């Protein structure tokens, strides 16, 4: 059953507070929440994903609910819990969905060490994948979002999960959090795509989530093989994108610094990263506008077979 079907069949209200299990890329999430508005948003973003009310073995046991006590009525707040522990300060109640998404990212980054986790956007075409590793603020989410609506399947905008056993990229398509200036840029670039409510003045400024194209969610259990690594950097006002081929050794060093858990994985991290860089062509891309950046990426990735 999908999340949309589950909602249609049962609604939320009858089972408020019960656990909801849903699939998020390779992960099963157990979510306990009484917040109907947050569950509604969850369904709008992840409708095609598998979901269930009966127990499944979960990778993450999370909770998003109203803060207890007086805070329920006065300047109400929301708290996130992982395994019953609260790793963050409460958020304003209105930002519960953003907190859930952020909390889940944090949970993944601190735990999913069965993968080498790159801080990267990832997209696939004809079974071959493009990685866009970058630090926050480099425009990785915006560029991933744009490519996802221009012929690429979104594998993820935040995590490039590399499976050590075979070097494949495991998809983790999530709602794409757009920040501040990216929101109007994407509204203009993708006028038909579904954008959730704007959460003003969060820790990262204004945030609005973009829903990934539905096929990305429907195919979220299909891995892809990495072929290109491009380090993007948004440079305001840059007319023509600057694309440079990178030495693999440099690509390796930059990825080792970019990964969430490279040091933690020790030798496994090293061998996985060496293999990744060997199998990919590495580039850096400075861009000032989405259309020309997408065209440049199309050129370097045109040699895909079939």
């Amino acid at each position, binding site marked *: 059953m999908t999340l949309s079907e589950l909602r249609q069949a049962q609604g939320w209200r009858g089972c408020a507070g019960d656990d909801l299990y849903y699939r998020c890329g*390779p*992960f*099963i999430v*157990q979510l306990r929440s009484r917040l109907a508005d947050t569950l509604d948003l969850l369904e709008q973003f992840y409708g095609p994903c598998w979901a269930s009310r*009966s*127990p*499944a*073995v*979960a*990778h993450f*046991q999370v909770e998003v609910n109203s803060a207890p006590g007086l805070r329920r009525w006065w300047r109400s707040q929301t708290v996130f819990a992982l*395994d*019953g*522990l609260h790793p963050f300060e409460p958020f304003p109640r209105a930002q519960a969905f953003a907190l859930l998404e952020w909390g889940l990212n944090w949970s993944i980054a601190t*735990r*999913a*060490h*069965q993968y080498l986790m790159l801080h990267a956007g990832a997209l696939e075409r004809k079974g071959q994948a493009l990685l866009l590793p970058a630090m926050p603020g480099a425009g990785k989410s915006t560029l991933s979002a744009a490519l996802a609506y221009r012929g690429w399947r979104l594998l993820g905008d935040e995590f490039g999960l590399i499976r050590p056993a075979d070097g494949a990229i495991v998809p983790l398509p999530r709602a794409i959090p757009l920040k501040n200036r990216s929101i109007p840029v994407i509204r203009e670039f993708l006028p038909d795509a579904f954008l959730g409510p704007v959460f003003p003045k969060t820790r990262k400024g204004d945030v609005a989530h973009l829903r990934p194209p539905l096929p990305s969610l429907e195919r979220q259990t299909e891995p892809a093989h990495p072929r290109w690594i491009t380090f993007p950097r948004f440079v305001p006002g840059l007319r023509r994108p600057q694309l440079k081929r990178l030495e693999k050794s440099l690509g390796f060093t930059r990825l080792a610094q970019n990964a969430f*858990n490279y*040091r*933690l*994985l*020790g030798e*496994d991290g090293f061998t996985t990263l060496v293999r990744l860089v060997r199998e990919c062509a590495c580039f850096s891309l400075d861009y000032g506008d989405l259309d020309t950046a997408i065209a440049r990426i199309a050129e370097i990735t045109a040699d895909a077979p079939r």
Partner: protein
Amino acid sequence: MHPAKLHPLLRSARDPLAVVHFSADDWNRCLRTARTERVLARLGYRIADADALDRCPAAARDQLIAARAYPGFLQGRIAHEVSQVRRALPAADGDLILLKGAAYHCAGLPLTRGRQLRDLDILVPRARIGACERDLLAGGWESQPLNDYDQRYYRDWMHEIPPLRHRHRDVEVDLHHRLLPLTSRLRPDPDLLWESSLPVAGMPGVRVLSPADMLLHTATHLFHDGAIRGGLNDLWDIDELVRHFGGRPEFWGKLPGRAARLDLGRPLYYGLLFSHALLGTPIPAAVLTDVGRRFAPARPVKALMHTLVTRALPPQEGWSAFAGLANWLLYVRSHWLRMPPHLLLPHLIRKSLRRLDSLDQHSGRLRG
């Protein structure tokens, strides 16, 4: 306790093949608790050793495997710290004995697998601890500034000096000169530990306790030097030490006598009793009887400890008044064992005053 009523984490530790029949609920309780008790990776190795990893659901297998990364990383860090400490101390400072996790790791014992190792515990003779401290301070290790009371607390009463930390690294080094505080009721003689300690292959000047002493120290640490609650990881150590060394015929023969010599009979009794009861540790029945006869407390104390420990040590889910009371009583007991009453009472009063003081400062900051 009937095995079917045990928490799924204990069931899986006792019999790793039991996980094959786990429901999704069993798994979720087991994984969540194993993580909070810091034994998830250890459980994963136990299941893998029983060839049952492939029969676990994918979501469980993912977590059991992912959990191995962090302990592996911590162990590498501790091994590096050991070599740095050894290099910083001139040979004249004498040998070091590694204690607990660092010892298991450097001695290559299988129980190191998946074990989270945060601090480096080292034993040196009391006569040389001052020289060792000076040499480490000269080598870049630093000590937190402490007030006079805390300095005196460590220097006059404790079994260790204030923790040291190298300015470029995030590992706490605890230098001990004995296993229990100077004020403690039990008084194991450190000289006996040194006599039977063993060299670590490939690490000159570094030693570990003998197998029997290792087990006695772990049991002492859990039952006579802390609040017991949250000690499942330590109980797991006892279990794995017994599984590893228990196959040697001479091990069981010498253990009770050694415990008596070191004045650690009572902790041995509790360690064997509760690891057997909760984790199903294989211990010869004759040993259990003998240790019970020699070292068990009077019957009412025995009954009370059994009630308290079997509430406090298994994973606690949710809130229960009884478990809360058990935890509190064991906390009081742990202090009682550490200090005689004429020292304990002023110490606890000082501690609680200081807690009030820091609460006050904290709320002041919030208001400001």
